[in-house]
């Protein structure tokens, strides 16, 4: 991690090519250094964070007065930092008989702030939780004394998690965990606090800034989606090809424990929806043996989406994994104990994240925890099924080889799509797709669940979701379209995105047929599309041209009366009711 001086020097660098994001920072202690650290850390992550900083201790005034500078600034992100020291100050003034209720009283005030912000701004709110202060008034007994400060602080942190889990626009930045990691001695320096009203030590600023910027970055859709694993001395101790199945180290004894715990961690990531791939220099059958036969292995073959074991160069193998998964290199993490392999991969594929694993496997986990690589801002049931989806995709690829004619292949898939408007069941998945999809995404507008709910309720939007299932399995909800009424004749395609795992199935044709049917039914004459280029969506550069739209200024226009239905082999799963789509 960069130190504060380095982050501060970043402020003088050229931000002109970086993505601009407007961030408001409000604190009840002095936040000047924190703001500098966040902007400097933003530079490291490729963002030009345009930060507006509220004057010291102005949180309530700025938030409750809707004509304040905060609302005028109209930020995309609002960061609120209320410190544990101010919290303790308030607690100290409570009458003893009211101390039991302290956390709930504070929670009400926080809710008042958050609801004002999320109600009036289309911003995501990042709230810092409370770092622990044990005032040692009760000693350990504080843990069984509801009125103690420690009890109330921890309760408030718990209540904040509940609040955030219920409110899609509120995110917690867990600086309490940051303090645990750094240690309070390094996190908080009494002399700085007493002399300056700053509660963060200079040496703690980079870690807090990093935690904040990671969250902002995830909100922009920059997340890690896949972890690629080496095997020998990464997933187990020893070399399977030399030592044999009985002698590799895994299980509860000695260093084997480190590898077992590491595997449990990978398994949890997989269950959360991170794709797990293997890339190993080994003979494939030998490399697979522990997964199939070793009783102490936590990971099994069905946890692995892509398994590559051969004697080729790892960079080439990772390129192959990338082409199967169809995700960006910058969303991949490569874990390998061998510094030589790490360097080859780093040099050939600079975008990929290659952590410098410690030499001692006992240190792997704590080191990986400290990197916090897998920040995310959403989690849905589909995440848990992702491994299976990619495995099915691998099957489909091998099946396709049997057909020489694409049409025959597509017909053989027996595809069905369920078309529905946004509803309360699909809202989390829709929001997630808008956050995650980078490649097949015409305008790359990110929406939260709250945004999606607003669009559903709006009279001028029409929403469409598409699933795709075939004889191999169900891909789930894979495509989202939002149409906005631009005039009585024109429907503007605000969003059209699709998961890359269903490319080349004729889905685009099926979707456009549905959109045109809708337009005709509702009396619109024109569909108007727009392509906003990003670093990642060149794939759909010619999307509208390919579908027969005509270019007009910076838009693409389709006259629905002259539209010829486009060929595809997907059948609607049930008859579409336009009244469902129309709100």
């Amino acid at each position, binding site marked *: 991690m960069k130190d504060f*001086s380095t982050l501060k020097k970043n402020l003088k660098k050229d931000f002109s090519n970086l993505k601009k994001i407007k961030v408001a920072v409000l604190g009840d202690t002095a936040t000047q*250094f924190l703001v500098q650290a966040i902007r400097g850390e933003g530079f490291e992550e490729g963002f030009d964070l345009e930060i507006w900083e509220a004057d010291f201790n102005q949180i309530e005034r700025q938030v409750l007065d809707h004509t304040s500078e905060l609302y005028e600034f109209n930020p995309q992100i609002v960061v609120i930092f209320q410190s544990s020291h101010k919290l303790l100050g308030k607690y100290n003034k409570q009458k003893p008989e009211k101390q039991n209720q302290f956390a709930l009283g504070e929670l009400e005030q926080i809710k008042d702030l958050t609801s004002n912000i999320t109600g009036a701004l289309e911003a995501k709110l990042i709230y810092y939780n409370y770092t622990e202060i044990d005032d040692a008034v009760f000693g350990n007994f504080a843990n069984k004394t509801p009125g103690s400060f420690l009890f109330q602080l921890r309760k408030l942190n718990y209540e904040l998690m509940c609040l955030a889990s219920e409110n899609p626009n509120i995110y917690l930045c867990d600086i309490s965990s940051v303090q645990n990691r750094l240690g309070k001695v390094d996190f908080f320096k009494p*002399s*700085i606090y*007493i*002399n*300056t009203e700053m509660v963060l030590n*200079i040496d703690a600023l980079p870690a807090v800034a990093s935690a904040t910027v990671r969250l902002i970055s995830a909100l922009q859709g920059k997340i890690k989606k896949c972890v690629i694993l080496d095997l020998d001395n990464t997933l187990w101790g020893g070399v399977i090809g030399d030592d044999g199945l009985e002698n590799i180290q895994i299980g509860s004894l000695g260093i084997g424990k480190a590898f077992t715990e590491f595997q449990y961690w990978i398994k949890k990531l997989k269950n959360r929806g991170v794709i797990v791939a293997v890339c190993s220099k080994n003979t494939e059958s030998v490399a697979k043996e522990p997964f199939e036969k070793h009783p102490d292995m936590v990971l099994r073959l069905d946890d692995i989406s892509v398994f590559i074991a051969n004697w080729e160069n790892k960079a080439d193998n990772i390129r192959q994994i990338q082409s199967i998964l169809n995700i960006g290199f910058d969303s991949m993490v490569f874990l390998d104990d061998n510094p030589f392999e790490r360097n080859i991969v780093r040099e050939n594929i600079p975008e990929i994240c290659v952590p410098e694993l410690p030499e001692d496997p006992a240190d792997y986990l704590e080191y990986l925890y400290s990197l916090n690589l897998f920040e995310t801002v959403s989690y849905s049931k589909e995440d848990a099924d992702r491994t299976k989806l990619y495995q099915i995709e691998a099957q489909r690829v091998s099946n396709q080889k049997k057909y020489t004619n694409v049409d025959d292949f597509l017909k053989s898939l027996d595809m069905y799509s369920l078309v529905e408007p946004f509803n309360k069941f699909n809202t989390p998945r829709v929001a997630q797709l808008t956050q995650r999809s980078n490649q097949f995404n015409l305008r790359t507008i990110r929406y939260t669940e709250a945004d999606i709910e607003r669009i559903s309720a709006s009279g001028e939007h029409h929403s469409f979701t598409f699933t795709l299932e075939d004889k191999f399995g169900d891909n789930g909800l894979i495509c989202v379209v939002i149409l906005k009424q631009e005039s009585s004749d024109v429907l503007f395609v605000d969003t059209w995105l699709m998961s890359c795992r269903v490319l080349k199935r004729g889905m685009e044709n099926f979707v456009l047929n549905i959109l045109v049917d809708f337009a005709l039914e509702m009396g619109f004459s024109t569909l108007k599309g727009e392509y906003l280029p990003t670093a990642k969506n060149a794939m759909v550069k010619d999307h509208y041209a390919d579908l027969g739209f005509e270019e007009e200024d910076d838009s693409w226009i389709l006259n629905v009366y002259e539209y010829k239905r486009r060929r595809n082999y997907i059948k609607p799963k049930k008859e579409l009711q336009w009244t469902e789509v129309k709100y």
Partner: protein
Amino acid sequence: MDRSEILKVINDIFIETLDNEEIELSEDSQASDVEDWDSLSHIQLVVEVEKHFKIRFTSKEIQSWGNVGGMIDSVVAKL
């Protein structure tokens, strides 16, 4: 370490922290003589000086300094 050596070390810390190669401190230098030496960067300077000499200043000491010489007094007293 004598006062002039300490001054040189402190000078280097100022150059690094304030990112300004031209800083040339004397014992009489005050905040108003040095560009960017404000109340905020002062905290950073104090922390860097503490780290370098592996010492801790008390709040009272920090508030008592009228110039760089005052800071050196405190360093000398702790070495």
